[in-house]
């Protein structure tokens, strides 16, 4: 479904990503682990067209993505929940959700899509008219995920969804991510919290300083001594 091959990105200095190759198959949840500056966010931003100068190949369902403007990517079926949530602060929950369907605004099933999001996150139903900027971090994360789902993505890119949230909220979010995946959406999940990421993902990649240093099933990564030392704190 998504194939990244030999991808290199630099912001003018040394490469932030160099020669990265990875793949997400239809129906999979794939985790990308790594420390703060490993290049995880850059990877997702490149897929979404936010970084114009990238070398290599990114292909989504036979369409090459590199060089495409960012606003044309959601229509292909890719939803992106950016790091730091980036909800529209002075818009209500409903307006945020509706903006998520902007690329698909002529669709006739927007009401059903809203219902799907509110079933997934019942808490948002109580917050329909509240300004997103005045909500808690966890609720904002739900708005951000809901907004991305409104575009009916086949692939969902999630950037640090658990960052800065209370453990109980994180658990709720990860249940939701599992549910989204069971509904048939592939997920590419970037996380610093490796325990959580590997508990929902089928497979994972470990990024270090812009290189993929390890990859495998969640089981094998959890068992890998290097991963255990560096990311699982064991």
């Amino acid at each position, binding site marked *: 479904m998504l194939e990244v091959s030999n991808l290199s990105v630099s912001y003018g200095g040394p490469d932030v990503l160099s020669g990265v190759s990875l793949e997400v198959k239809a129906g999979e949840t794939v985790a990308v682990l790594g420390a703060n500056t490993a290049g995880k966010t850059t990877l997702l931003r490149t897929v979404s067209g936010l970084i114009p100068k990238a070398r290599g190949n990114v292909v989504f369902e036979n369409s090459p993505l590199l060089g495409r403007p960012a606003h044309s990517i959601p229509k292909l079926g890719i939803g992106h929940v950016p790091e730091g949530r980036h909800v529209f602060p*002075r818009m209500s929950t409903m307006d945020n959700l509706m903006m998520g369907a902007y690329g698909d605004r002529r669709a006739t099933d927007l009401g059903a899509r809203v219902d799907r999001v509110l079933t997934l996150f019942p808490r948002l139903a109580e917050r329909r008219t509240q300004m997103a900027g005045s909500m808690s971090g966890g609720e904002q994360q739900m708005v951000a995920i809901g907004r*991305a789902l409104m575009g009916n993505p086949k692939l969902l890119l999630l950037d640090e969804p658990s960052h800065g949230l209370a453990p109980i909220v994180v658990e709720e979010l990860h249940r939701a991510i599992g549910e989204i995946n069971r509904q048939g959406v592939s997920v590419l999940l970037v996380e610093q919290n490796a325990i959580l990421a590997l508990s929902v993902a089928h497979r994972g990649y470990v990024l270090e300083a812009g290189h993929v240093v390890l990859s495998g099933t969640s089981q094998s990564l959890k068992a890998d001594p290097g991963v255990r030392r560096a990311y699982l704190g064991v």
Partner: protein
Amino acid sequence: MVQALVDGVLLGGVYGVIATGLSLVFGVLGVVNFAHAEFLMLGMYVAWFAWRYLGLDPLLGSVLSFIIVFGVGYVVQRTLIERVLKAPPAAQVFLTVGLLIAIENAALMVFGSEFRSVSVPYQVEGYRLAGIFISAPYLYAFAAAVILSAALWFFLDRSWTGRAIRAVAQDPMASALVGVDTKRTYGLAFGLGVALTAFGGAVILPYITVSPTIGGQFVVLMFTVVVLGGLGSVAGALVGGIVVGVVQSMSALVFPIQLQNLCLFVIFIAVLALRPQGLIKGA
């Protein structure tokens, strides 16, 4: 006194629409458009020519002003302003001030320096209500401004394009991620901003004469209104417009006409010094 209040509100409503355009441009693009008043002048000329050669009342010609100046604004944004969106503020100031000088001098060349005015049947008419005289051109311009403001509010609140404009103002990156073409949206927002101001210029044509340098008379007023309302706030600009209109017409009771702008300057400086976020918050 009450008379001055009524005049002030009627004038101020139009100032509100004129300044809303400036506020919208700043709110969405983050650029202070020093050339903004030049688009008011263009709107006035469009309405003047529509009156002179098509026989259109400026109140109807204002629609033409809106459409034409919208187109001009969109092109100016996509060809010039777009280049400095991420540049330091100094570059933006140089560009918009340069634009001001260029547009003003082009207008002098094309339209000539003479003052032009329209004559409409209701020019000196009005209504008497409980001893107060309500000037017809003031009233009609005010009504047009109110209608356009309501339409603007509806557009920004309900339409897909309006929502996209608000979204880009709040978070351009997230807007791109949901499929908004941010470059095009910046163009539309700039076009809309200058078109609102052009519309305001057209509807006041029955009581103000137009010349290529008319922008200079409105630039201080516009910035005062916007600073009063809080830069970037559309609702604030409307309230600010009415406050400025009232102050202007009240001060005419006390001071000679030449000192009208002095009062505006004093308010402008006082607001910046005491309440730089504007008189009202949010929106």
